């Protein structure tokens, strides 16, 4: 397993709410090598964040891991105690959250919140930790670091706060950085700056990144691999080129059709994906996307499609691909 930094195999996770079991993750598998960037794309509730949080052992309250293996850097996450997990969090795996406005504790200074994580995971004393914090602020492009260290979160702008969050995440030079929609809450110009900063730091520090987003534009520019999630499943997985130029799943195709492009003609309209996401309390028997799929067939509504692979790293779960195989097989007979 050493060849992968992250190797999640057949993860199943449910939230046990008063209304019933919500199957948030069904057979999710993800691999990621050191220094690689993986994008996880999908709409709200598709299980992107849940996958990432479970890797950090941060599954929220009624959620329970039901099966699968989660390997990270030689650790087997699902078997670790909370105490062992705490040594990894913030140290080997870090995370940046969506909303920088609420992710920092309002009653402590920036300096306090950065040095806290440094002192927790390293032997540095207060003075060294402060020096490191200053260095980190410079690294993430914040000017006047000495002044900023003494300021409170409410005195900083949104983009600035997200830089601080990145500084906290990078404090212990993690092997893996999870970015959970890091730019959704920011202005467009700031978005580009933050993404650029993340790529720059990745090259400098050599960490792997899992980029969670619903913005295909973001993953196209940053990621080597992309996992497309729908209703708690990875419906398609492949390199960025595979996903953008040879999409095999109807949902992926729909997503790509719905992004505006420079060469879109004036009279052409963007094509939205009709319908609403599935209710994970009562998931359909067959392919979860079938009710919204233009090309749905009878089998789609009845059975979950098996995995079809295209080369080493590109695979998908869609009956349309099985149809070709089936027809080929049928003609042979």
């Amino acid at each position, binding site marked *: 397993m050493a060849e992968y930094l992250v190797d999640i195999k057949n993860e199943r996770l449910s939230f046990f709410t008063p209304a019933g079991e919500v199957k948030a993750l069904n057979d999710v598998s993800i691999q990621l090598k050191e220094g690689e960037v993986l994008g996880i794309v999908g709409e709200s509730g598709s299980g992107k964040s849940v996958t990432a949080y479970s890797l950090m052992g*941060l599954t929220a309250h009624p959620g329970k891991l039901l099966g699968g293996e989660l390997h990270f850097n030689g650790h087997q996450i699902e078997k670790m105690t909370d105490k062992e997990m705490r040594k990894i969090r913030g140290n080997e795996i870090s995370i940046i959250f969506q909303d920088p406005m609420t992710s920092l504790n309002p009653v402590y200074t920036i300096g306090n919140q950065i040095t806290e994580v440094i002192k927790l995971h390293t032997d540095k004393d207060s003075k060294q930790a402060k020096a490191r914090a200053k260095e980190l602020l410079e690294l993430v492009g914040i000017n006047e670091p000495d002044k900023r260290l003494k300021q409170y979160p409410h005195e900083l702008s949104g983009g600035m706060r997200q830089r601080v969050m990145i500084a906290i995440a990078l404090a212990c030079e993690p092997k893996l950085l999870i970015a959970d929609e890091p730019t959704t809450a920011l202005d467009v110009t700031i978005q580009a700056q933050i993404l650029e900063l993340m790529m720059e730091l990745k090259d400098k520090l050599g960490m792997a990144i899992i980029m969670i987003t619903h913005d295909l534009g973001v993953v196209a520019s940053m990621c080597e691999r992309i996992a497309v999630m729908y209703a708690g499943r990875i419906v398609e997985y492949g390199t960025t080129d595979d996903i953008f130029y040879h999409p095999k799943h109807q949902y992926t195709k729909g997503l790509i059709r719905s992004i505006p492009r420079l060469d879109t003609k004036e009279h052409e309209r963007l094509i939205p994906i009709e319908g609403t996401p599935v209710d994970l309390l009562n998931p359909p028997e067959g392919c979860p996307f079938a009710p919204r799929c233009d090309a749905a067939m009878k089998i789609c509504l009845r059975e979950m499609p098996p995995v079809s692979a295209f080369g080493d790293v590109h695979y998908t779960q869609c009956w349309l691909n099985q149809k070709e195989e089936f027809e080929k097989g049928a003609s042979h007979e």
Partner: protein
Amino acid sequence: MAKYIVKRILLAIVTIWAVATLTFFLMNLVPGGPFLSEKAISPQAQAALEAKYGLDKPMFQRYLNYVTSAAHGDFGDSLKQRGRTVMSIITMKFPVSARVGGLSVLVSLTLGIPLGCIAALKRGKVTDSVISVVATCGIAVPSFVICTVMMYFFGVKLGVLPTMGLETAKHYIMPVTALSFYPTAYIMRLMRSSMLDVLGQDYMRTARAKGLAGGKILFKHALRNAILPVVTYVGPMLAYTITGSFVVEKIFVIPGLGGEFIKAINGRDYTLIMGTTIFLATLVIVMNVIVDIIYKIVDPRIKLK
């Protein structure tokens, strides 16, 4: 900061003046007077008494006199307790009430804050239900019920606790328990709901993602944010509690300021009523300023205006 304090002091003076004025005129407009109930005295003696205390002068004149001397720190003599100044009565009775009240505030904080936190952390579990039910019962039972029921069982039936006075430490047990019942329950509920609110905040997730241990997350990141509503409540509550509860002082025969105030009202001891009201108002205002300053220290987002 200095500007803020000056502003608050000026505002406090205006508020106290308004309270004093309102009380003065209300009190004097009400029919009756301090010496009417003393049936034994003759009309001449009554007139003499009224002249002695300046009650024969027109109301507005008396108001001006009172405000002038009060501004100089002279709150006059008690009309009913001959030969004693209002100040001396307050300084004698207040410490008694303050000891009982202060102790009960201490009890309610040391019980209420941890229990409220525990309930929030064990949300939905049996512990939470038990604490919440106890807290709801606590705010539902009026203090006179608690006092009398305790008095009956511990004082009369079992005879283990003294029922009146404040001579020994044992004497404090029942009044302090009775007084701390409501605030303890209230703080528990307040703490539980604000803790639940804080636990759902994004920065708590950040703290967990940093790899901090549960205790550190709770004490450093959650408690400081969650305690703010309790601070707001405790300030004025402390002021009211240390000036004495009428019910508790009446039932347990405690010579405190609360009972004295009721006596003064019923006997129309104008000067004592005024003195006590001003004293209480000042205490409440001072507590509010202290709360504001603590608030500013705990939460840097707050600007003192």
